[in-house]
């Protein structure tokens, strides 16, 4: 009985195996012809290059957005104090039209920018009050300073005003 079963199934198994092999071969031959769609392939870091003019951070849709102003003939960032003055002055009409705004009060400038004395980082001494500044406004100032200093993005920046000192904070853009 068992022997009979075995003799009956053996050829069938062989046929199945042959069919499987032929199927695999055909799949290999027919599928995968031509250009196939692919997943996303990532290469090196994005294209990057120098900027010219004064860079300052305004607000677009609640987030910081870099704005370059061609105020200077030569390439390279302008001085931090100049950039802060431009920031305090607020967006130009064109920028306002493009949906940009600023929360930095106009009395923030003039300001002095210098390396911190007792700790690594930058200290910005402003003429206006610093404690009432919103977080976004503080971030605008910090990132603008960091961009114009050509410094490290992680450099902590301390804002000092006549009313006191805000704790040091880096520019977290990403």
């Amino acid at each position, binding site marked *: 009985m068992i022997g009979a079963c075995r003799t009956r199934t053996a050829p069938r198994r062989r046929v199945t195996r042959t069919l499987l092999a032929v199927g695999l071969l055909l799949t290999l031959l027919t599928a995968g012809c031509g250009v196939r769609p692919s997943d996303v392939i990532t290469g090196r*870091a994005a294209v990057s290059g120098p900027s*010219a003019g004064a860079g300052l951070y305004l607000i677009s849709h609640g987030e910081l957005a870099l704005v370059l102003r061609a105020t200077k003939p030569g390439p390279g960032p302008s001085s931090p104090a100049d950039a802060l003055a431009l920031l305090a002055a607020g967006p130009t009409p064109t920028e306002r039209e493009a949906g940009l705004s600023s929360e930095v009060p106009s009395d923030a400038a003039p300001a002095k920018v210098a390396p911190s004395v007792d700790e690594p980082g930058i200290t910005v001494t402003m003429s206006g009050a610093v404690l009432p500044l919103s977080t976004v406004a503080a971030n605008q100032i910090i990132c603008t300073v960091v961009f114009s200093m050509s410094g490290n993005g992680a450099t902590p920046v301390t804002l000092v005003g006549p009313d006191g000192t805000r704790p040091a904070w880096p520019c977290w853009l990403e």
Partner: protein
Amino acid sequence: MTPWHWAWAMALGLRVRLLLAFALLGVTTTAVVASGSYFQARTVILQQAQDAAVASLTDELSKVYPIVSLPPNQEELDMLAQRLSDREGDAVVRYGDLWAQSVVNESDVLTPELRQEVAGGRIAWQRVDRHGKHLLLIGTQLRFDRSDGTSVPSGVEVYSVRSLDSEQQSIDRLAMLAWVTGGLSLILAVLLALLAARGVLRPVRELGRAARRLGEGDLSTRLTVRGVDELADVARTFNDTAGTLERQVGELRRMEADARRFVADVSHELRTPLAAMTAVTDVLDEEADRLPGDAGQAARLVSQETQNLTQLVNDLIEVSRFDSGTARLALDDVDVAAAVNATLRLRRWADRVETDLPSGVIARLDPRRLDVIVANLVGNAFRHGHEPVSVRLRAEPDWITIEVADHGPGLDPEVLPHVFDRFYKADTARTRSEGSGLGLAIAWENARLHRHAGQPGSLVAGNTPDCGAVFTLRLPRVASETVDAGGVR
């Protein structure tokens, strides 16, 4: 062999199997090699195209710097897009919600995963199928360097959409080449298979033919041994076997011929002394009555036994003629009924036998042999069966049939196949037969000696339904000289 059998044998034949094996091997090898190289080449082609496109876009984009003003307005974005578009690809430029005008419908083409990867700050690309066209999408942000090597995003993203049609064509050409290679290799495999099948099949066919000839009795059949492979081995073995067989059969034949010649010689040698003895016993016979008591009985016994011996020697000579193939027919046109009647009359059986012999049946046969057969059969019937014994003649267009029947106990079924054997004793207890023991054998040989259209005459033993043996003799109406030496019993 039915056509189905033939087709089945062909389908399972060596040629087809070799063909299939070679074709499968060729196709598999080609498929593996061709598909392997095809995939490899396709990867290389696509990779080179992608790398070249990415490099070209990066090169173009590096000329955009230094960027002097942000945010860009619509015209600036349009200009940038126009500058980056060429005949190989269209550029899509985006700043926040602002998209440069482009021939490409960006929301349709750009995939979310690509945009996500680009937003992560790296150059990214992807192959997609859109409306049956193969496209390569490359995307990157534009960023600003900082002195410490890091960079900050400017918010501008550039995408390049390129067609991969030329690459598709190259790959199609590759595929075409692979198919052609596969087809050619298949043809080559089939040709090789046919060649190999021929090489294998020819010796096999020769072997089969030789074996058939050997089976038909041609013991001198030999094969030509070619090469040193297994088939040559088989051919050599075949030749050796055939050689041994031929030698042994030759030996047997020689021994048989020797034995027959010996019998013939002995019979001939016995004839002369027997003739002398017969002459003496004739005298003794005449004197027997006058001899007193035992001497007369002895003289009669000697005379009787001498007659028997003479009969036996004559029968032996007859048999050895059959064996040596020297027996010849002396054909004559004979009235069969008259011939049978003459036989019966000559032996004084005419009044003891019921005859049914239609007259006018003329046959061309050997009358002496007919006489021998009929006398043997009728004598046999008298000796072993009971009266009445009947002889019936029947005529057919080409054959005549003579039936000799008795009303004895009939033939034992075990005896039937041996009735015509030489010296065969139906009753083993009866060691001393009245006849020579060769009578029926000689009758059988005589019947077979008559041939018509290649078919020999026959003598068949059987039983009638109402108990009794019946011997049926069948002879051709027109017998021809036979060349058949003896017969196969």
